[in-house]
């Protein structure tokens, strides 16, 4: 087990290295630069600024310098946000996104798993059909639509919830709903199909023959066996939601990492693009390792080698 984890971490470092290298060169291949949009810059001033950030050196030298700093945990200084290091920006913004995303994942699991299980147990009945229709709709409707509609009705019309920022607990309600709608519906559908599979298994009949009540057999036998696909999905889901959603953060004016991640690209804030991308990659790798370890605990048939 320990050997497996060490191996996975080493592989993860290699993956992160490849991601960093590819991002660095692709980013520099894109035409334009951080100082082009600023008006009335004399060639001398531009050259001076490029020299300040080391952008005048050959690309390969820039790469070596960056990777050298990265090894020391230094991801450089943001070009656009003067005076902030990339480490600061990630350190400040990530907790905001992580809290919101974590809540959304929690909501998605707590609602999606029971919903999917109920649908499976009521297969073919009205309740099952209702759940299928709603979960399909929830997957199809984009989050910017649900957020705008929620904002219009709940904040503007009914004045029930605050529309912007993250000042109090009430501010979390709409962004969390908007973020969790898709994963909730997706988990419900995953759970329904895997539950249907488990219900038909012989060991469910064995449990019945032992005299296990229906209720108990659902929790003890069915749920434990049916949850695996949801756990698989949880790894990438946690990674993508906790690193922030650009759309949701933009709509609700939330100072999260997702916003930085996207807005760094058009402004060619090279160090910030690198920093957020590498951070995101590392986070996904970490989550996948955690999911694999969780597998071994949930399913004894899975051996980590």
């Amino acid at each position, binding site marked *: 087990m320990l050997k497996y984890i060490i191996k996975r971490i080493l592989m993860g470092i290699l993956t992160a290295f490849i991601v960093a290298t590819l991002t660095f060169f692709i980013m520099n291949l894109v035409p334009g630069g951080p100082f082009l949009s600023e008006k009335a810059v004399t060639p001398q001033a531009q050259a001076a600024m490029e020299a300040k950030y080391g952008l005048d050196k050959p690309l390969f030298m820039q790469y070596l310098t960056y990777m050298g700093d990265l090894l020391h945990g230094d991801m450089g200084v943001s070009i656009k946000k003067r005076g902030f290091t990339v480490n600061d920006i990630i350190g400040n913004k990530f907790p905001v996104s992580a809290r919101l995303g974590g809540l959304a994942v929690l909501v998605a699991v707590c609602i999606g798993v029971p919903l999917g299980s109920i649908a499976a147990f009521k297969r073919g009945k009205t309740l099952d059909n209702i759940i299928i229709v709603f979960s399909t709709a929830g997957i199809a409707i984009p989050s910017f639509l649900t957020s705008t509609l929620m904002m219009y009705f709940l904040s503007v019309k009914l004045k029930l919830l605050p529309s912007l920022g993250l000042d109090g607990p009430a501010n979390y309600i709409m962004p969390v709903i908007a973020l969790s709608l898709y994963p909730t519906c997706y988990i419900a559908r995953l759970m329904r199909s895997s539950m249907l599979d488990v219900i038909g298994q012989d060991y469910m*009949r*064995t449990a*019945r023959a032992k005299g296990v009540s229906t209720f108990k057999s659902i929790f003890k036998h069915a749920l434990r066996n049916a949850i695996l696909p949801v756990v698989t999905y949880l790894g990438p889901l946690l990674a993508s939601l906790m690193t922030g959603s650009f759309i949701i953060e933009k709509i609700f004016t939330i100072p999260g990492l997702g916003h930085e991640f996207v807005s760094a690209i058009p402004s060619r804030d090279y160090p910030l693009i690198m920093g957020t991308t590498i951070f995101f990659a590392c986070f996904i790798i970490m989550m996948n390792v955690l999911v694999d370890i969780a597998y071994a605990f949930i399913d004894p048939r899975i051996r980590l080698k």
Partner: protein
Amino acid sequence: MSDILLDIKGLKQYFPVAGSKNVVKAVDDVSFYIKKGETFGLVGESGCGKTTTGRSILRLIEPTAGKISYDGEVLFDSESGKKADMLPYRRKMQIVFQDPYASLDPRMTVGDIVGEALDIHNLCSDKKERYDRIIGLLKRVGLNSEHANRYPHEFSGGQRQRVGIARALAVDPEFIVCDEPVSALDVSIQAQVVNMFEELQRDLKLTYLFIAHDLSVVNHISDRIGVMYLGHMVELAESEELIFHSVHPYTRSLISAVPIADPKVARASKRIILQGDVPSPVSPPKGCAFCTRCPFADEICTSEQPAFEEISSGHFCACHHKDLASNIDKPGKKLVIV
């Protein structure tokens, strides 16, 4: 108290066919009884309703109609609408399933699979007693104490079936439905497991309903045998009587299909090879269920369902031409009884 443990009358188990009004008549009007301490064998080809009969008796699936009585008490009666609470009977009536791979929860250790039954019926007062009983049960079926902490996937098919048997024995049952318990196993292991069933029966005074499609296995273990075809019981008699004096043409063909070890005898014996396939249980033939494949079928067979009658003491048969069938070669004489 009579010596009849289980009495089944007019058992019917119909399943709806998705998307149509038709039903699959998996078990259609089956009646028989099982005496205390005996082994009742149930044979027939795949899909004839043997397994469904076994499961309906334990009400793992709710029967469509009929009456099931256990030790004088009614478990299910469609006429009076009585449906007994099964929990106390789950202690007395157990089942060993056919597939030892799928019937054990892969997330539970063998100890817990066996122990769960003990927990539900509150058979152990403390953890020590629970552990001791589990180990005792595992040893009883030829496993050992180390096996308790392992998971089902770590066992071979034969060992898994032993776990399935230990699980069924955990509650000290009186009656066990053995639903093709050996058909998924290698022939060499089959013998071991069948012998274990016999040993357990002797030691624990068990009553079995032994379901199989292999007539030689059933013949070996059973006191009486019932033959099923397309949801109907077509013949029922004591084992010897059934093997040597079978009357129903279907039973005859089954017996003739049993492989014979001695090539000389095998060459001399005639096999009765049935033509065609088993009809669909959704639209069974009018009249006798076997009429589409029976060599003696005539008008009456295709129009009228034969009654399940007693032809000699304890020997029942449902056939219009009981006399005709007895003219053909008696295959039972050549059956090498294993």
